[in-house]
């Protein structure tokens, strides 16, 4: 889905930015340009970033438990 209407940035672009190393909402916004015009989508961007970071962390926990 497109989350930033001003710069046409999708939730996949946001997750890709996190995968590429962005660790804060500000870094994601700078990298993708999401939320850098009207700013109306920053809370949506934050939600997508938090959800994705959580998913990454829980998959790491799963890997840990499988390995031990």
């Amino acid at each position, binding site marked *: 889905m*497109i989350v930033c209407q001003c710069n046409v940035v*999708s939730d996949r672009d946001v997750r890709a930015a996190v995968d590429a190393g962005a660790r804060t909402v500000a870094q994601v916004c700078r990298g993708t340009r999401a939320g850098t015009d009207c700013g*109306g989508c920053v809370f949506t961007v934050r939600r997508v970033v938090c959800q994705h970071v959580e998913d990454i962390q829980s998959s790491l926990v799963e890997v840990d438990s499988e390995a031990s």
Partner: protein
Amino acid sequence: MKPVSPRVTELLNNALTLELTVINGYFLSARMLDNWGLPHLGKAFYDLSIGEMNDADELIQRILMFDGHPNVQKMNAIQVGETPEEMLQLAIDSELGAIAQFNGGAQECHDLGDHATALFFEEMARDEESHADWFESQLDAITRLGAQNYLAQHVDPSSRPS
């Protein structure tokens, strides 16, 4: 006429914010679907967008009746699907959010003793329920038929360049 509490106009304005958001979301989805060659599904979104606009109209009139100021500037963030299936899923999510918000509004209005505004919210919640149900049925149909078979029903083979 003054409302029983300023909270009533606040609740009506919150509902207006939600309606204005979905009007735009549905309208863009409608025209994107038209553009993808799926005018029948586009028409469904178009009609819903106009329907929500009528709801917004009633909200504006009710807020004005209570000598309040309708906030037509405020909108929530819009999320637009990039596929028809995603559009349908996002529409269900937004309708469910609307149902929860309107039920909450109705409850608060009942508690404040404004049963007329409560009924107004209840009627809007019931409208949104029927929309959510329709969207859900579309996703059910996609599960049964497959996306391609479903979407084939939404093209217009009789259309010609104008």
